[in-house]
């Protein structure tokens, strides 16, 4: 968190390690595509060779039965016909049934594969991240966070209470704790040295937006003035983590970049 302190105007603070989010995102998106192609080779090969060709025949078992082969039906009555069918079924019926089962298995496996592929695609990190894909939500979170940062990090020597009151509604979690600690430390100096600070978000980019959680990169300009002295403007880069609580974006963490 960067606040202009009484003595020094925002020297670049050391930061933690970089997280190469973007490359991860890309990798995560790539996998579903290859994943989706997987059902093809996964076709159950458990059946004996040529299950595909027998499959064509087995597709219409009922038809085959009524025609009952090339032999002309003997006019000996039902009894003979039924007996003939029974005896003929044993050599041809088993592979047919196996083939039918194979087809069903193939269809089921294919369906499962497609379902899994669709699920992978939908839950891929790239798709879940709605930054820019949902323009309205993206603009909203960016606007609210810009506004929050400006309110929380702008004050006059007499008016830190406004900033602190804003902080109570706009900050949460770690960000709120840090802010309170910082203000407790510098509160007296601020008034003593008559410091005025105004903060403005110059550029804001939404890195990640997933439902009620967002991460943003914000470029800030912070203009400060001591007493009647000259105003100096310092640049600050922050990554802000925000959470949507009661339909309002609240800042839960701020990291100086």
């Amino acid at each position: 968190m960067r606040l202009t302190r009484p003595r020094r105007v925002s020297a670049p603070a050391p930061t933690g390690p970089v997280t190469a989010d973007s490359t991860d995102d890309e990798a995560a998106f790539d996998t579903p595509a290859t994943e989706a192609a997987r059902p093809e080779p996964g076709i159950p090969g458990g059946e004996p060779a040529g299950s595909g060709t027998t499959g064509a025949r087995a597709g219409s078992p009922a038809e085959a039965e009524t025609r009952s082969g090339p032999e002309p039906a003997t006019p000996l009555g039902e009894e003979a016909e039924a007996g003939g069918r029974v005896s003929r079924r044993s050599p041809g019926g088993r592979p047919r049934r196996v083939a039918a089962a194979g087809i069903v298995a193939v269809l089921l496996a294919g369906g499962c594969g497609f379902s899994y592929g669709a699920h992978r695609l939908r839950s891929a990190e790239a798709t879940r991240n709605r930054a820019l894909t949902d323009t309205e939500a993206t603009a909203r979170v960016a606007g609210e966070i810009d506004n929050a940062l400006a309110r929380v990090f702008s004050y006059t020597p007499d008016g830190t209470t406004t900033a602190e009151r804003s902080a109570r509604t706009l900050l949460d979690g770690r960000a709120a704790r840090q802010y309170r600690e910082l203000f407790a430390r510098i509160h007296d100096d601020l008034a003593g040295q008559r410091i005025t600070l105004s903060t403005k978000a110059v550029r804001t980019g939404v890195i990640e937006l997933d439902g009620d959680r967002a991460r943003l990169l914000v470029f800030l300009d912070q203009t400060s003035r001591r007493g009647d002295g000259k105003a100096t403007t310092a640049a600050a880069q922050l990554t802000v983590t925000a959470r949507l609580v009661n339909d309002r974006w609240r800042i839960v963490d701020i990291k100086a970049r």
Partner: protein
Amino acid sequence: MPRAPRVLAGKRPRPLTALSLTLALVAAGFAAWAGEDWYAAAHDDRAAYAAQRDEALAAGEQAVQNLNTLDHRDLDRGLDLWESSTTGELREQLASGRERFAEQVKAAKTVTTARVLSGAVTELDDRAGRARVLVALRVTVKAPDGAKTEKDSRMLGELTRSKSRWRLSALGQAPVGGASAG
């Protein structure tokens, strides 16, 4: 009914056939539905847009880092990388100023490395193949005497997609204290 057993024997395959037919139909229906579902997911515009966004960001971060990295001992490779990371006007600028710049760096004997701290895409026109990115960067310059200086900078980059690759077409520092814009 003396004939009943025979009739039953003759008809026995029927329920089995009907069952397997139903089963096959259900399986086919399921496969068709799942296939269509997968197709829809794979051809979802939003997913494609999201993928482009992530590609643009990755390419933008890498390009910004490349353009802030240069070792005086290996100038040619570094400057080749600059050119391959860029396109359009920026590339022409770099190419035309290359000789002069190389001499300067050779004389200064500096090693410049950069680390991307964070980056975000602010605009993306998927059809036109244009995007804008913000990149927070830490640049470290090592002088010949071993002294290191670190500087944080915030860059605004414009990317243009050509041959399905995103490259930087403009790059500059975000102005401090200037007029604000989105």
